[in-house]
């Protein structure tokens, strides 16, 4: 579980995160939604340590970020898997090398074992037979799968995804969403996903946090998001006619 308490972060005097508190449970897909500029990416990057918060704490299963020494912090980073928005795969390496990279850096496994592990996770993300391809030879969806494989190859406790299905067609986007959800449940990972894709919200949002202007404006489940009368959430989530109709249908069905 990850617990965030009163997180503040700003740049050049401009406050981006204004005291966000939230709990993210293990084995669940936790979604952070909000408009562009609401602070989602800064929040996620603060959680994974790419930004240093000015105030507030982040607790990883009882380990508080500000109380950790450098060894503990290094250890924690090896428990984190991250899927970046643009995949962030090393384009000078093949698929296999990308996936094996964390193993090479942090384990002393023989090559054969590393390769077996890489093949296992590549099979898990349904990407068999692409081991020797370079990143430029892969489609967007395949790149996302490789990024997920690299993120889970070290058996992480925490998985962070920054808009994992941006730029993908709806069918591939749903496949990626479901893959993340399955992996989260299968390996009991605490998963946090940044998204503004409403399909993801409806599909895999077990816990949803809505950010507005650097503050938590709402939190709940995907069922609750249908019923909420929070104006900011309603305006954001149901901005399209399609989702308005989906909501109406859901409410008519449940009433």
């Amino acid at each position, binding site marked *: 579980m990850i617990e965030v308490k009163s997180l503040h972060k700003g740049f050049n005097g401009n406050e981006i995160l204004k005291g966000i508190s939230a709990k993210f449970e293990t084995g669940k897909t936790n979604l952070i939604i909000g408009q562009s500029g609401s602070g989602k990416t800064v929040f996620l*990057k603060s959680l*994974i*340590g*790419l930004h240093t918060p000015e105030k507030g704490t982040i607790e990883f299963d009882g380990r508080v970020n500000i109380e950790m020494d450098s060894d503990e*912090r*290094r250890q924690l*980073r*090896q428990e*984190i898997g*991250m899927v*970046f*928005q*643009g995949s*962030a*795969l*090393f*384009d000078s390496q093949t698929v296999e090398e990308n996936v094996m*990279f*964390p193993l*090479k*850096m*942090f384990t002393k496994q023989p090559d054969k074992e590393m390769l077996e592990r890489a093949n296992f996770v590549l099979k898990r993300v349904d990407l068999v037979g692409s081991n020797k391809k370079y990143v430029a030879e892969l489609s967007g969806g395949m790149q996302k799968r490789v990024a997920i494989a690299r993120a889970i190859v070290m058996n992480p406790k925490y998985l962070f995804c920054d808009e994992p299905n941006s730029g993908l067609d709806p069918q591939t986007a749903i496949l990626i969403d479901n893959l993340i959800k399955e992996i989260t449940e299968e390996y009991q990972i605490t998963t946090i996903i940044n998204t503004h894709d409403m399909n993801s919200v409806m599909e895999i949002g077990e816990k949803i946090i809505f950010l507005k202007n650097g503050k938590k404006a709402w939190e709940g489940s995907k069922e609750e998001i249908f019923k909420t009368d929070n104006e900011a959430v309603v305006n954001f989530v149901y901005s399209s006619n399609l989702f308005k109709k989906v909501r109406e249908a859901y409410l008519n069905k449940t009433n």
Partner: protein
Amino acid sequence: MNYLQEIGKYFLMLKLVFRKPQRARVFKEALTREIEELGIKSIGIIAFISFFIGGVIALQTALNLNNPLIPKSLIGFAAKRSIILEFAPTFCSIILAGKVGSYITSSIGTMRVTEQIDALEVMGINSLNYLVLPKIIATVLFYPFLITLGMVLGIFGGWVAGTLTGLFSGTDYIEGLQTDFDPYLIQYSIIKTLVFAFIIATVPSFHGYYVKGGSLEVGKASTQSVVWTTVLIVITNYLLTQMLLT
């Protein structure tokens, strides 16, 4: 004030670069790759330019020494001194600053804007150490060989130019090469090369690593890095010449 901040940031970067590599095996692989990218792939351009510039130096010297009282062997002597002292270490380093410097900045800069460096950091890897240290070691190890090759081919180019044009004989040229030969000049040239190699690896890395924005900014950073690397090579050349030869 901004320049002072940048200089401070550069030295802080170096502090992070010079750490023990996290995995010796990964470091060796990276070093081999960098020797190939930054060194071996530069042999062609250095060989080509050295040969022809050596020829031009010898021809220019011959054309400007038309006094019959001056011995023809002076052409070989002057070409040798020019090539060993300045052309090979300084001119070749400026060429490498353009070729290798822009490559380093654009490759690291692209890694920055596509979040590959963030990915390394999230994994708990010292990205500066992982990306920059192999480049420094590769250039410092390989460039003395590259510059020595430049010296040899430059001098050879001078000999070829002379014998093909008939402006001076090969015998005179070789006599000039052997006249008053001081091995310290080679030492001086290698010392300069080592310093320039360090500049060529670190200044473009600095520009690439701290780039912000997108592909346009990476392009601008590449240009900036070549300019600054060249400026630093020229200034350092002056300082080293004063320190080592006066």
